[in-house]
């Protein structure tokens, strides 16, 4: 095939690869010739969360199944990997190359998917969601109960440095592990992408769109979903394996409800409709989690608010928002949205700043002050016990919101006019 054609079609993959390889060098410490540990961990977390969220989306976006217990697949994969690593180390096993260790996680997730998927896919819709919720709670509780496999509260520790690499790499430096992680997450993501192009992937879409009709074109939707669940389990398990490689310790948090919720948030915020949405979502969620949590303990609240806003106004997620612009871009009139966007941006910033200020003031009063921390907002020291900052913050938030509403109306007018134009010219919406 023509390489240029391939590039044009698959440029996203190449871009992702380049970003993953290049980004750590932005934080490279040239004077000491070392990678920043924080940057590598952050990027690793984003990559493995992306794999996890993509796996989640195999159920949510592609099969229309809402799971609240996806982390059990991730967690079992992580535990499998830790035990495999320990076993390889203890017995000095040379036939299992270090590069293939993540497969152990995949197998773990697959096995877990075979069991959990069988139970969960007996039902659909809300009942499915509740079964996965129950399974998630069960696994999390069992993890604290059975010491041998789960290691109780302390979890299972392991050591990723084993000496069976086919390339002769020891994986003792963070950069080496990061390269392995890039390889595996790219591999997993590409496989998941290819899966969407197979008969199973398409029929999974069909069961999402119209469960009943699928039966009359010859497919048993339950079987379709079971297969889909098992395969999602494999990839969630790989994500879990990558987690083990990065952190070298697996605790019961890896299969608890919060982890499941993270996958859900990432997949939904990114957008379940397109394939790449969850990757974007994982970057946003991990970014908020790791970046914003450095500055504030209220990051989960911001994430929650972002999530609710998306659910209410943009159920297609970030990728959906981008997709909405496609017809306008094809007309070449994206520029006309520039001014409306800028005009909407101002009240958003004002209101957002007010909201953030209120949240931070409140957090400081109840949590921060007790720890003797000083509060500073937007680089200004603020006294959370006096009235003024509160008043200003509330006024900013309310004024911003009202202003945004007015601006939003203007924006919608402009937007609708453009979309109508696109329709009139026969450009698909």
């Amino acid at each position, binding site marked *: 095939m023509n390489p240029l054609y391939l590039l044009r079609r698959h440029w996203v993959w190449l871009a992702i690869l380049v970003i993953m390889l290049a980004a750590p060098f932005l934080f490279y410490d040239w004077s000491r010739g070392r990678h920043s540990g924080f940057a590598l961990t952050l990027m690793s977390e984003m990559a493995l969360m992306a794999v996890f969220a993509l796996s989640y989306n195999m159920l949510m976006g592609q099969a229309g199944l809402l799971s609240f217990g996806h982390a059990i697949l991730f967690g079992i994969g992580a535990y499998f990997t830790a035990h495999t690593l320990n076993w390889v180390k203890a017995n000095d096993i040379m036939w299992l190359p270090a590069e293939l260790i993540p497969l152990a996680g995949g197998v773990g997730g697959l096995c877990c998917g075979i069991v959990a998927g069988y139970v969960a896919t007996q039902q659909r819709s809300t009942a499915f969601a509740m079964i996965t919720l129950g399974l998630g709670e069960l696994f999390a509780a069992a993890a604290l109960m059975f010491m041998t496999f789960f290691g109780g509260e302390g979890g299972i520790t392991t050591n990723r440095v084993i000496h069976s690499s086919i390339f002769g790499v020891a994986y003792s430096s963070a950069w080496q592990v990061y390269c392995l992680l890039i390889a595996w997450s790219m591999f997993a993501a590409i496989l998941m992408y290819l899966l969407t192009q*197979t*008969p*199973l992937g*398409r029929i999974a879409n069909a069961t999402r769109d119209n469960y009943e*009709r699928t039966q009359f074109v010859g497919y048993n939707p339950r079987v379709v979903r079971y297969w889909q669940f098992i395969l999602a389990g494999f990839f969630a398990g790989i994500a879990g394996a990558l987690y083990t490689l990065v952190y070298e310790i697996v605790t019961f948090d890896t299969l608890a409800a919060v982890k499941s919720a993270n996958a859900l948030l990432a997949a939904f915020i990114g957008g379940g409709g397109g394939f790449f949405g969850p990757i974007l979502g994982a970057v946003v969620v991990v970014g908020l989690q790791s970046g914003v949590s450095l500055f504030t303990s209220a990051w989960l609240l911001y994430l929650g608010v972002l999530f609710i806003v998306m659910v209410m106004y943009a159920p297609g997620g970030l990728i959906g928002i981008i997709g909405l612009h496609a017809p306008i871009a094809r007309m070449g009139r994206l520029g006309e949205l520039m001014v409306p966007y800028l005009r909407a941006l101002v009240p958003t910033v004002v209101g957002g700043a007010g909201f953030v200020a209120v949240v931070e003031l409140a957090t400081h009063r109840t949590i921060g002050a007790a720890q003797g921390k000083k509060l500073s907002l937007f680089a200004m020291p603020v006294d959370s016990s006096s009235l003024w900052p509160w008043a200003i913050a509330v006024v900013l938030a309310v004024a911003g919101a009202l202003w945004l509403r007015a601006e939003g109306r203007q924006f919608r007018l402009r937007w609708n006019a453009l979309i109508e134009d696109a329709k009139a010219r026969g450009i698909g919406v």
Partner: protein
Amino acid sequence: MSDAAIQLTDVRKSFGRTEIIRGVNLTIPKGQRHAIIGPNGAGKTTLFNLISGRFPISSGTITVNGRNTAGLTPPQINHLGLSRSFQVTSIFPRMTVFENIRCGLLWSRGYKYSFWNLLGSQRALNEASDALLERLNLHSRRNRPAGLLSYAEQRALEIGITIAGGANVILLDEPTAGMSHSETEYAQHLIRTVSEGKTLLMVEHDMSVVFGLADVITVLVYGEVIASDAPANIRSNRAVQQAYLGEEAA
């Protein structure tokens, strides 16, 4: 071994305490084009639901291509070579028109639940899907999400999904309902060509389509067959005129 495509023997169906299908006997030989007519609420759609396995029957037997369908699920009955359409359009709205058609083709082409074949490189499959799109006059809509099509286009797609798999027994539930005159004419032509050499059972209200297509017409009233005969005889049947056609004329 009979050569009936569909055989119903004393089929009954009750919802709660009301009996909707009240002892229907019907034999449709292979290769016949058969129409069911009858007033609204007569149980025509219910009969389709029973034959295609959507609901279980209360008593009686149904055979499709010689096999008793008792206890079979809709996909299993589909694998016996029977495919049906729905009165209330039932398509895959978020998938493209092309994907809709291809979904109808997958099982019959032996792909089953496979996750190792890439659909993009299945030449024969894709060509067959495109060829069917041409026949349905939907090729210009190929890459549109099916949910955005016009009503008539969706009806055409509904027929397309039904016939895509090449089933030899086809059940169409009011295929032309809500279509304009020219659309109906085209649909009639389409149904004629796709049912060539196959067994067709259809529910239809448009009498020009019924009399234009059917070899045999069955009249169903209140869950009972009151007549089943060649079109000419149905037209002159007193009971039918009273129960049904007369109503139209009045």
